[in-house]
């Protein structure tokens, strides 16, 4: 049988029962569309997490205090709870470790910030003038904390745009106004440019003050919460990390690495472990969606088996007038593949459309990849082949004499 005639036979058979064919295809459409949507949402989420992590700077090392542990005690406290890092440590890292570009010592604290008529609970970061370079912060208005502000313990503050809007209202002039933090008045000298939420810490919802002022007036000690180290080249991350570990252990008189009182976080390893989590999540979603694809495939098989029974007489006739087993099985396989292929194409279009609508709502920027489209269409054809095989074989094996007698 020629391809052209196979196509003709397939079309006329499927169009003979439009509503049944349509409903069967619907099962595949739903399956493929949900796989496409799930993959698009998963890929979109993965992209957004990866980009927000890399927005933090991929050549950054973050040194944070380790778990607090009393002398001789086997019980360790929460990680980061110990007070072990100082600005001197930061200065030493800048000076003695090679491959280091910039070092920013930071003090973090969650505080209530009060303006005349409003107040908000935000993250307060005590910073030095190097902070905007290390963390890619730019100014929308005014200026950032200067070296002078740090040495003079100046009571000045730079607000994130969200804080400014919350305290003074959208569009209101904030520079020159006063905010009160832990009973101290700070003058607003600048507003940072909006960066967008990064998931873990929102730089727009942050207040920056000089590190010295933060230590004296807010935390009340000389320790720092973290030291951000910008490395010259991404390739040096590991060697710099080892250099810092050696230096700080020496400075803190620690000989055993198991007892070290600080941790160094590598942004790159964070980014790769996060993206592996989202990848697993994406596949999990797709696996759940493919259950509906399996159900759709069973629907195809069910319809094809019914069709074979209904058309027993026709199969008998075809065999009597010269159709070989191969001709019959080819015809039924073609029908089932035509169904699933159509379902696959329609499902991709609908899935793409829904993914696009999700993007338009602004919830998440979904991403339909060529890979997921090819995969879905390929899988739909495969389903046709697998679930059509058994009915087709049954049809081909029919004895023409018995098939012709079938009523």
């Amino acid at each position, binding site marked *: 049988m020629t391809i052209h005639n196979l196509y003709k036979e397939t079309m*006329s058979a499927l169009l003979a029962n439009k509503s049944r064919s349509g409903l069967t295809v619907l099962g595949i459409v739903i399956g493929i569309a949900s796989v496409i949507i799930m993959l698009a949402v998963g890929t979109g989420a993965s992209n957004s997490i990866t980009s927000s992590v890399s927005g933090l700077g991929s050549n950054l090392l973050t040194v944070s205090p380790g778990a607090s542990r009393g002398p001789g005690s086997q019980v360790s406290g929460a990680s980061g709870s110990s007070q072990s890092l100082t600005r001197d440590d930061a200065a030493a890292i800048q000076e003695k470790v090679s491959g280091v570009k910039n070092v920013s010592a930071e003090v973090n604290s969650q505080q209530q910030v009060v303006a005349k008529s409003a107040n908000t609970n935000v993250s307060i970061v005590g910073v030095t003038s190097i902070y905007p370079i290390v963390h890619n912060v730019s100014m929308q208005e005014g200026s950032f904390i200067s070296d002078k502000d740090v040495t003079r313990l100046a009571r000045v503050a730079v607000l994130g745009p969200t804080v400014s809007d919350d305290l003074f209202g959208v569009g209101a002039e904030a520079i020159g106004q006063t905010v009160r933090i832990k009973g101290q008045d700070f003058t607003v000298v600048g507003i940072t440019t909006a960066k967008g939420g990064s998931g873990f810490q929102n730089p727009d919802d942050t207040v920056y003050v000089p590190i010295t002022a933060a230590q004296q007036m807010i935390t009340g000690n000389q320790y720092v919460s973290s030291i951000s180290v910008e490395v010259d080249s991404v390739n040096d991350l590991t060697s710099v990390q080892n250099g810092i570990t050696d230096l700080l252990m020496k400075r803190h008189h620690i000989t055993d690495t198991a007892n070290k009182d600080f941790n160094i976080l590598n942004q790159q390893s964070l980014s790769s472990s996060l993206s592996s989590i989202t990848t697993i999540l994406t596949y999990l979603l797709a696996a759940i969606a493919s259950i509906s694809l399996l159900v759709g495939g069973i629907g195809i098989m069910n319809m094809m088996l019914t069709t074979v029974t209904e058309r027993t007489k026709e199969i008998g006739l075809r065999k009597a*007038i010269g159709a070989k087993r191969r001709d019959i099985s080819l015809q039924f396989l073609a029908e089932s593949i035509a169904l699933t292929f159509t379902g696959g194409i329609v499902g991709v279009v609908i899935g793409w459309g829904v993914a696009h609508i999700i993007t338009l709502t602004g919830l998440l920027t979904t991403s339909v990849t060529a890979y997921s489209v090819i995969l879905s269409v390929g899988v739909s054809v495969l389903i046709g082949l697998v679930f059509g095989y058994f009915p087709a074989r049954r049809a081909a094996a029919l004895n023409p004499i018995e098939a012709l007698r079938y009523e």
Partner: protein
Amino acid sequence: MIEVKNITKTYGQGDSETKALEGISFTVKDGEFVAIMGPSGSGKSTLMHILGCLDTPTSGTYLLDGQDVSKFSDNELSEIRSQKIGFIFQSFNLLPRTTVMRNVLLPLVYSALSEKEYELRAKAALLAAGFPENRWYHKSNELSGGQIQRVAIARSLVNNPSVIMADEPTGNLDSKTGDIVMGTFQRLNEEKGSTIILITHEPDIALYADRIIHIKDGNILEDKKNNNRRLIHRDIANDNT
């Protein structure tokens, strides 16, 4: 040319073994119009299946145009049916919701013929079967009983078979339409020299053939020339209703 030599057909095994054919031999020359007649259970259907290459005998030989097809496999039998046999069934078995043309050319789809020849051959077959030209592209479910049977005849002619096997072709028809069908057979037999084997249990219908083979209990009871041959008037045979 059909030559069957001592063919038997046995169904089942052991105690439940039944012999449908107990050694049948005869020859049908090209251009003959033979009726195989017998009551139900006589083995005539089994014989028809073997002659039509739908089944193989348990023993004996069957030479179709000099080729022994009695030991052929499923696929080889399909090939032979496609080349040498034309079937007309009691219930016609046209594809529903499909045009007359498509129904007639269906056997060619499974042949080695090139697609260009399909319609030419189908048109020639429809003309030979006396099917009205203005309905060639109508759907098969829009036809009258007589027209349906003419489509079935045209379909059996389309592959230029060595033999046309007609299995109770008038069983589902009223006597007038039955006459039209038998008249068409007689005309094809005379004008085109088609070899026709007619299987029937009705003695009236068998009288249209030039030779009648009586079968009973799997044996040939009688094989003789039909001296009381009924002839259909040409006008009836050409009635297209």
